[in-house]
């Protein structure tokens, strides 16, 4: 399922948060959305959540504006993993994943055998079947994130949108989530706060600054030292990762020099 942002502009109160962003995510691509805090990444994503209505332009899923379809229809086309969910309610892991069936069920429909299968398969895909009966709140951050991805999978949507899925996770859990997202082979747009994650895991990267899209393309080509300096205010060097052999980005503070002692 293709996702397009067409000249999207979004105001929150009097402030223009996103201006004239056009971005297209093709079937099967994993695209990373990066930018400093406050650059409008989450706001742009929320236009595709059908939460914020753009003042100009539109977010299109499968060629249709999300605001021209019902909330349910939108949820059959795209699934969302929001930023860091805090949940006090005593839901079990299986119940959380079963919520993914919401857009597929009418008001009077009961859960069917098919629903159970979809839920179990989603849990299995994220390697969380062992925790199905556990309370969601008692899981670690990385485990919770995997469960939320399973909920998104249970929607059986063609498009996955995530907002900083590795936030607040320890380093191993971060890589587990990123590996998982790559292995799902879904059309994916994900906001990322770590440039290196964008470089090593995304087919393409889109860079936002002050509400505008400033660059997009293959990460290793787009994230030049000049651009990273201009947008993020840090020094950056692209080289090859000694373990994976894939491109990686090393960053340091803007005035950093090579020294032997600190």
């Amino acid at each position, binding site marked *: 399922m293709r996702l397009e942002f067409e000249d999207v502009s979004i105001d929150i109160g009097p402030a223009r948060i996103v201006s004239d962003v056009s971005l297209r995510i093709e079937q099967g691509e994993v695209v990373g959305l990066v930018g400093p805090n406050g650059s409008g990444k989450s706001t742009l994503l929320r236009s595709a959540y059908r939460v914020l209505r753009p003042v100009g332009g539109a977010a299109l899923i499968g060629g249709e504006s999300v605001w021209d379809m019902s909330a349910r229809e939108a949820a059959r086309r795209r699934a969302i993993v*929001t930023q860091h969910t805090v949940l006090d*309610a005593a839901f079990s892991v299986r119940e959380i994943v079963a919520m993914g069936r919401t857009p597929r069920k009418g008001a009077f429909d009961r859960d069917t055998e098919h629903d159970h299968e979809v839920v179990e398969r989603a849990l299995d895909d994220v390697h969380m079947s062992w925790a199905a009966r556990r309370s969601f709140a008692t899981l670690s951050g990385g*485990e919770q994130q995997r469960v939320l991805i399973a909920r998104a999978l249970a929607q059986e949507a063609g498009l996955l949108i995530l907002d900083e899925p590795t936030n607040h996770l320890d380093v191993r859990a971060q890589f587990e989530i990123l590996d998982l997202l790559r292995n799902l082979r879904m059309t994916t747009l994900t906001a990322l706060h770590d440039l290196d994650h964008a470089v090593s895991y995304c087919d393409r990267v889109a860079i936002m600054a002050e509400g505008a899209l400033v660059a997009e393309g293959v990460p290793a080509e787009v994230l030049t030292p000049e651009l990273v300096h201009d947008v993020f205010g840090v020094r950056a060097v692209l080289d090859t990762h000694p373990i994976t052999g894939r491109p990686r980005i090393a960053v340091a503070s803007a005035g950093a020099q090579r020294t032997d002692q600190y």
Partner: protein
Amino acid sequence: MPRIRGSRDAPSRGPHLVAGRATILLYAVLVAALVAVVTVAVSLGTATLAARDVWHVIFSHVVGDTGGLDPLQDQIVWDIRLPRVLVAAVVGAALSVIGVSLQALVRNPLADPYMLGVTPGASFGAVLVMASGSTALQGLGVTGGAFAAALLTMIAVFVIAQRGGRLTDTRLILAGVAVGYLAVAATSFVQLQTSPNQLAGIMFWVMGSLAGTEWADLRVPATALALGITWLLTRGRALNALMVGDDAAAGLGVDVHRLRRQLLVVTSLMTATVVVVAGGLGFVGLVIPHITRLVVGAEHRRVLPASMLVGAVFLVLVDLAGRTVNRPNELPVGIFTAGIGVPVLMWLLLRARQREGA
């Protein structure tokens, strides 16, 4: 927040005491408990009757053959106690269901129609219509006035509590309590203006009471409860989604704003019908959903019916206590709901804090 890896090895404990097929059994137990407490509540009183006699009277009325009944027993059971006990059951059930709905509406376990100011608001509307000479207001009817005032109160609380479209816990509770106090003051004022000697009337609107309820009081709240719970159950999945956050709910295809508006109307309507027959009863909507969730978890398609039954059993028992512990005087049922509700609330809060600290 660092967590220790290897939670995989921890004993696999589910969040619910009762899950899956056992839920059906739980409903059966609760229905049986309700029948039992209704029987006990109708039996006990100034004159204590045998359960067999109670059911004989009820059965005779149901089949329409009341010829052979002892007139005194008939009057005690059918005219005095049974309607009151059934109203207690309906009111307890409705308040619990309203509590569950409001807690989902504001995503806050502290939500309760009394604390959010809806109950006092509905009381004010009811009193205003009763006291008013205006035919326009009279035309609304007491329940209509209570409903309009409840809806307006809830909207006022939301407008005061929200900032930039977001509701924060503290602001919500503060706004609810503040608007509630205002409504209580206004209710007392209107009451004292119209009937200066009726302090007991004020007690009804502030504390709640089921004294003197009749068959006529049963129909409206029972209908509202039946319609309300049916509609809410069809929205069970959406209510679950609402608990995990607005954006996540939108991601799951829930039209969050529309659902909130609908919940606002449904809970206001149910609250109004309850307030008109039972006055300003507090804490039922807070305590019962909490206790029920401890047993069945947070899934609304289980919490709603289970809370409804638990709430019914609870209020029948509490009302029984209200009219028997201090015989022949009757204590308002609200004293008991607060007396039980507040310690339970504090216990729950302490438990929650301990669990967070652990």
